[in-house]
């Protein structure tokens, strides 16, 4: 099966652009699996947060998936296009990474 991930990319302050990546997948694989495949096979500079990979314990992989806020590790890949974008109400850092750390755990320059 093939999924197309349409991913909003760019740095804070840049006009966002959407890039499309096709990934082969097996039934049951997650959107996070798809993003990791994109980094391994197409573009290692793609930025997204994740730590625990599969357990939904770290809660870092939250993003906008087809317009809904959700975890990339629990939403499954589907055939056709899936649109991915950074969280809309958080400051953008790059690609799908937003500023989600509690304010007193950030370093300010």
């Amino acid at each position: 099966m093939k999924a197309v991930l349409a991913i909003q990319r760019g740095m804070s302050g840049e006009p966002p652009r959407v890039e499309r990546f096709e990934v082969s997948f097996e039934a049951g694989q997650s959107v996070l699996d798809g993003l990791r495949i994109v980094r391994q096979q197409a573009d290692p500079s793609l930025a997204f947060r994740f730590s625990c990979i599969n357990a939904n314990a770290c809660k870092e992989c939250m993003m906008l998936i087809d317009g809904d806020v959700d975890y990339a590790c629990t939403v499954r890949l589907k055939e056709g296009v899936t649109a991915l974008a950074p969280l809309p109400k958080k400051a953008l850092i790059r690609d799908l990474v937003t500023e989600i750390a509690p304010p007193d755990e950030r370093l300010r320059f």
Partner: protein
Amino acid sequence: MSSSENNAAIDQPMHLETDVLVIGSGAAGMYAALEAARAGASVILAERSLIGRGGATVMAQMTVAAALAEQTPDHWEHHLSDTLAAGRGLCDEGLAALLCEDGPRRLREMDDWKVGWAREDGHIKQAQAPGHDRPRCAYVDFLSTGPAVSRALRSRLNSAGAVRRIGELLIVEIMVRDGEACGATALHLTTGRAVTLAAKAVVIATGGLTGLYRRNSASSNMVGDGYALALRAGAELIDMEFVQFFPIGHLAPRLVGMDPIMWDPFRYKLGGKLLNAEMREFETDYVDQDSRSDGRYVLTRDLATYAITKEVEAGRGSPAGGAYLSFQHVPEAEMRSAFGPVVDRLAANGIDLTSRPVEVAPIAHYHMGGIRVDAMLQTRVAGLYACGEAVGGANGANRLSGNAITEAFVFGARAGRNAAQRALQACSHWEPQAARPALDLLRSADRRDAPNLAAIVVELKALMADGVGPFRTADKLRAAAQAIARLKTEIGQSPVSSATSFDTVLVDWLDLRNMLLVAQSVTLAALARTESRGAHQREDHPALDETWSVNQLVSLSGGQLHLGRSSPSRRRTLP
């Protein structure tokens, strides 16, 4: 990034000063930070991910072993004798005794901090886990031990004024001057800026190395970076060949949103039958090899891994290449009472345990080896401490279920307090020159054409799983060593970069620099140990050899790894 932008981000590093720098914010790092602050030191807690979210703690699901004597009479000496037996002659007995003796105090402290240990009839409930002689393992329902521990410690940290928590800070190098640790150089991931940290004591709490393996139960950032930092700072590593494979990691069908090691607690509570392709229970076939097994769910992890692998090799594996785990004999009501909402999460994954078994197979889970420390949790580099899974020695050749979180609490608290006591008496050895080599390394990053580093990480994990996995031979280990050397050449001497902020390519390069050094250390020690013991199984040397009742030490000098030996540290007997 133009080279001038790059230089600006690196040439004007932010500089921070503290008494104690703690690297890593799993249970060990958070406990170390709390205890160092309690002893009166200022503390920076640095975490490459978000505070309390990465590492292994948050992934833990169930058991935390300590002789609380709540469920049944117990004494820490009994816990120690089980720990030493599982370690098969290689435990550092002083560290193991510290773990067992101090464990109950820390579990009760966590209870005071509202971790929420499961209770029954007014007492903390303790489950029986393999290798323990009695019910000894506390837990938080349902499968929530790790998140509950993280939450309780995070909430303590929020109210500990002396601890400055900094997430998204990747430590690149620990600075040593005049033989003493004096701070670290780091990369701030979100801005791409360099940060220098002056500290009078440094505590490594970065966890283990299971992220070096294809199938593992770790967070993505458990790639042995603390071991590499320690080696380059001049510390020694011990027992690097002992990687624990958790026998019943989830294999099929695909399960999302749950930890692959979740079936262990199911077995503690509900039994559960491990079946081969003939639907026959086979664990008992392997029991006679372990004098501590009595036919219940007590087959220690090394033996269960062996049993499943041998069944697969004999053509009796499940379709996906593991074993079946069946709970079909358990009534649905009992399952729901034991696991409540987890049953619904399984249903969302299309898994109904009452109607069919799942498939499981060994998965890299924990590393018994690690940084060599003394009784003060200090390395041979003055002022450099380690705690938690990053420490080697306490568990010898095989770790008991339940000892990992306990050692995180106990060693974390001890290392934090010892580091603080040292820091409060010492003057700073920091000088800016100490950071220069690490800053030069970061400055040399460029956007050259390079192989896809994310793909190289995958390649390394595959070759470690296939060549340096649970069952080893000299030929496979030599081939793995050659492949690791080739990957070292492929990544080159200077970092690759791709962006000014959240530079995933630069992080992969810095990780690979560490991972390859650590992979080399594991392979070197595994090749030298020509026997089978605990988690290190050599198919070309299948028996335990008493002459190998020694620990192997790895050190780095002149850019080369060196292997040494020492006798296991025995407990001092009281007069």
